[in-house]
């Protein structure tokens, strides 16, 4: 308490205290002198004696002043004022340093905020590190899955898992009560929530009897559904609701942060209620398990090996060679390929931070060496080493603070930009906020940067030689600066190479032939509500009517119907080897990969401009036929009918399905997304016959128009609304659809290019700074050389060579590093190798040219110096 009070008094002590003490000191001396005079001294002698006993008036004042206020605070104030004055005098230096730091800190914070959620986010389960996803991988389902026949046997055997559970994936379901809604249901095993370790926030988990066939029907509802549909009424538990026409009891409500381990959207969880004794190889589920303590995912996989053999005996023979076991953490399963881009982004942004730090460092070093003489003067005038260090520290700390503040603004802006351009496939991006922990971390990095580089020159003892006109050309600082410039060039090289590869890959992606004509095509995806359109007949009627209605629109030349549109991968598919050709035995052997297929009406090919290369297309009158017709893609035709004419042949695509007559062969189109390998494909004629409408609840209406596609959108909505006002319609031009597919690579390319450009600018600034400084430092030497007969080109070459030296070293190191590091980009690249020679050549030449230009300016200035002036220069 007393200490605090004293501190407070010292803080507010002002000039008044000084004047007061002056009077007190005077009074002290007077009293002392008076006594001396009384003792018989002359006034002068008495006063002298008094001063001696006092220990000197000035020393006393000093001691008093130090006690009266806080000296270090005053020094700090003084240093701050001095530093700010220095910044004002040299705005170019200040702005460059602050912007550099701010860009480094801002970009790092923003990117880290984004990737943190992808790379380091803990899934919202109890002890998430022990949760794994378990299953087989096979071509038909890219994610690991388990088969009923295998799973139940295996669950009841000793295993490396403390508990094992499963879910059977999402399916659309309808809430069929007075306030109906279209929902997503997921069926899970009763042990699902307990294995994840997330109890419902209201009500209870499923009971064992509810998970048996014909058991009581129960459901857990999501927090979102509870909020939107039931107004967070706690009384919702035990209420009976209608799901798909069945009476289901709500037993509980899930937490607001609940998410499925495979990230399906779940409004309602229902028990699987599987008869375990009869569950066979046809039942596909997704397995999740909690590892026993001390067992890793790899060990678990090892322990499961013997059981795999058993599992494989239940798998159709043709799968066996293509099936593998996979045990990986839930987090890995959730993030999949987003991890790759996240690491690349993180690497790129750390490189930018590195460049920024090196740049600020070399700026500070350059500045300090130009002030060597000033430091020497200050030192000669009595400044202690500590004062010089504290002055330098204050200066770099101030720079760091300014940079950090600006960086915060940049971070917020960049984050908003990321969120705006981020593809929907990047998980957890929505709702990303600037993380204070991360901001704190980057601020620390920035401060450390400033302090470290502020201290190096401060400990460089000001030498007496600093007074001399010539400074030695190589000091520790000079070497460090050159090293940093070379390092910046090297890191920039890596960034530029990465960006160049991504840009090339992106342009490959954009300019590749899609096999379809996207101009002037508008798509309208319509999903029918299950509880309204219950019969195949009603669904067919709706779409046939909608098709006819759209034909009436002005400017529409053709209307087609399909269930999916290329080049996305949302089409249906099945494995190749189940296809049967009339007159041939069934195929044997492996799966043969996947075959894509979709429904199509005759106009489909006309609208998308897909040429029929053999035979003919579908005809309008065939839509009423009782026969089934198909068109094969070129690749499927040549695979099924190598060397034969497929026209008129009969094909049964799926066992148990009808036979189709092949009418023609269409050219190949991109059908598995922009970056993926195309699948062979066939088209089934979508007839106006109820038989073809057993399953589909959704379809895409394709409209070819001569007028502006966007202007047509409201018309399309009105026309479909006139058929049935309740169905949601999603209208997009085909160009927009295709553009969305490139969102992800566009995001990656844009960001990496931005970082590469930032890095390049910083490296050039750094190089320019160092070269300009060196040239200025050598002015006198240049004068001597010129006086001795050197011509301007010689001087130019002299300075340029020094810069070229750094550039060559930096570029070479960068080239080697880039070649080594670009492997990580491999999976992000399309139709281009990670060592594409053209990219590297362009980047090397660009970087070298820009860097040489940065040295050319100072070199020219050095060469234009008048020898007489240079000799006089100090």
């Amino acid at each position: 308490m007393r200490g605090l009070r004293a501190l407070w008094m010292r803080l507010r002590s002002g000039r008044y205290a000084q004047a007061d003490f002056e009077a007190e000191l005077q009074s002290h001396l007077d009293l002392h002198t008076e006594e001396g005079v009384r003792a018989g001294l002359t006034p002068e002698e008495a006063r002298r004696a008094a001063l001696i006993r006092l220990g000197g008036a000035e020393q006393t004042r000093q001691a008093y002043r130090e006690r009266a206020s806080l000296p270090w605070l005053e020094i700090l104030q003084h240093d701050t004022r001095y530093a700010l004055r220095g910044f004002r005098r040299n705005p170019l230096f200040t702005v460059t340093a602050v912007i550099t730091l701010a860009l480094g800190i801002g970009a790092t914070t923003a990117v880290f905020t984004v990737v943190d959620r992808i790379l380091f986010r803990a899934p919202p389960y109890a002890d998430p590190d022990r949760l794994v996803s378990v299953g087989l991988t096979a071509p038909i389902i890219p994610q690991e899955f388990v088969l009923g026949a295998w799973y139940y046997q295996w669950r009841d055997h000793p295993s490396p898992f403390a508990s094992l559970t499963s879910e059977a994936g999402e399916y659309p379901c309808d809430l069929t009560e007075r306030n109906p809604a279209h929902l997503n249901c997921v069926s899970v095993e009763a042990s699902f929530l307990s294995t994840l370790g997330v109890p419902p926030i209201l009500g209870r988990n499923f009971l064992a009897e509810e998970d048996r066939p014909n058991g009581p029907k129960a459901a857990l509802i999501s927090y979102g559904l509870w909020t939107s549909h039931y107004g967070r009424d706690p009384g919702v538990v035990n209420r009976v609701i209608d799901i798909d026409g069945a009476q289901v009891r709500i037993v509980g409500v899930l937490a607001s942060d609940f998410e499925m381990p495979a990230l399906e959207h779940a409004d309602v969880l229902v028990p699987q209620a599987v008869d375990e004794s009869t569950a066979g190889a046809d039942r596909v589920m997704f397995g999740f398990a909690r590892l026993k303590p001390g067992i890793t995912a790899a060990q678990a996989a090892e322990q499961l090996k013997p059981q795999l053999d058993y599992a494989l005996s239940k798998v159709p023979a043709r799968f066996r060679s293509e099936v593998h076991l996979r045990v990986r953490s839930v987090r890995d399963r959730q993030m999949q390929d987003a991890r790759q881009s996240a690491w690349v982004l993180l690497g790129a942004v750390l490189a930018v931070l590195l460049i920024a730090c090196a740049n600020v460092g070399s700026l500070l070093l350059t500045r300090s060496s130009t002030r060597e003489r000033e430091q020497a003067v200050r030192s000669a005038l009595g400044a202690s080493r500590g004062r010089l260090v504290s002055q330098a520290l204050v200066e770099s700390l101030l720079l760091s603070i300014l940079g950090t503040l600006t960086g915060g603004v940049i971070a917020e802006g960049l984050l908003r930009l990321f969120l705006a351009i981020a593809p929907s496939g990047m998980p957890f991006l929505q709702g990303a906020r600037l993380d204070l922990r991360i901001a704190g971390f980057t601020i620390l990095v920035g401060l450390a940067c400033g302090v470290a580089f502020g201290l190096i020159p401060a400990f460089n003892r000001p030498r007496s030689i600093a007074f001399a006109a010539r400074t030695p050309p190589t000091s520790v600082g000079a070497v460090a600066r050159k090293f940093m410039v070379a390092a910046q060039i090297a890191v920039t090289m890596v960034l530029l190479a990465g960006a160049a590869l991504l840009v090339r890959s992106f342009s490959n992606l954009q300019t590749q032939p899609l096999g379809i004509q996207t101009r002037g095509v508008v798509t309208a995806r319509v999903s029918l509500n299950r509880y309204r359109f219950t019969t195949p007949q009603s669904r067919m009627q709706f779409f046939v009517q909608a098709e006819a209605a759209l034909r009436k629109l002005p400017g529409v030349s053709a209307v087609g119907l399909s269930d999916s549109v290329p080049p996305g991968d949302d089409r249906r598919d099945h494995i190749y080897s189940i296809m049967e050709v009339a007159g041939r035995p069934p195929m044997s052997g492996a799966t043969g990969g996947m075959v894509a297929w979709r429904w199509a009406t005759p106009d489909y090919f006309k609208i998308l401009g897909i040429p029929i290369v053999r035979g003919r297309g579908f005809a309008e009158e065939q839509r009423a036929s009782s026969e089934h017709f198909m068109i094969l893609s070129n690749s499927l035709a040549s695979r099924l009918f190598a060397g034969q004419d497929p026209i008129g042949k009969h094909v049964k695509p799926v066992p148990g399905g009808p036979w189709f007559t092949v009418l023609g062969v269409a050219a190949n189109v991109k059908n598995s997304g922009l970056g993926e390998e195309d699948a062979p494909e066939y088209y089934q004629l979508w007839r106006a016959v109820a038989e073809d409408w057993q399953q589909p609840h959704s379809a895409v209406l394709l409209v070819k128009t001569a007028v502006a596609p966007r202007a047509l959108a409201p018309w399309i909505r009105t026309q479909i609304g006139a058929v049935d006002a309740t169905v949601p319609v999603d209208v997009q031009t085909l160009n927009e659809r295709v553009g969305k597919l490139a969102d992800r690579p566009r995001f990656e390319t844009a960001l990496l290019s931005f970082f590469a450009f930032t890095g390049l600018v910083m490296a050039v600034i750094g190089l320019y700074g160092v070269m300009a400084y060196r040239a200025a430092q050598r002015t006198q030497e240049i004068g001597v050389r010129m006086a001795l007969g050197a011509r301007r080109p010689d001087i130019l070459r002299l300075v340029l060579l020094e810069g070229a030296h750094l550039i060559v070293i930096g570029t070479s190191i960068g080239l080697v590093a880039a070649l080594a590091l670009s492997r990580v980009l491999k999976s992000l690249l399309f139709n281009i190798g990670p060592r594409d020679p053209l990219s590297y050549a362009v980047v090397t030449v660009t970087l070298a040219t820009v860097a040489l230009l940065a040295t050319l300016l100072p070199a020219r200035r050095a060469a234009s110096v008048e020898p007489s002036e240079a000799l006089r220069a100090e």
Partner: protein
Amino acid sequence: MGGKTDVWQGTLALMVLRTLETMGPQHGYGLARRIEQTSGDRLQLNYGTLYPALLKLEQEGYVRSNWGTSVNNRKAKFYELTRAGEKRARKAAKEWEKTTEILARFLARPEEV
């Protein structure tokens, strides 16, 4: 701030407090003289060090100061103990006695222990 100064300042503060306690309000010069007299002129005080010590005591709230006139009609700043200062003086004196007593045992001749 070396250890020596601290100890010196600590004892000086105690001397000031005790002197003010026994003598009542005093100006700086008078205090200095009085401390020297009390020590039997064995203590050669550097008068200049007294003022920062007084300032510290004042900042801590143990003394307060007021301008007044001395016996020979000169303007001088007088220091006096506050209530806290009186308490502090008694407590510090007790602590110091205890310390010296303990130290005395160490400095005493071994056979006397």
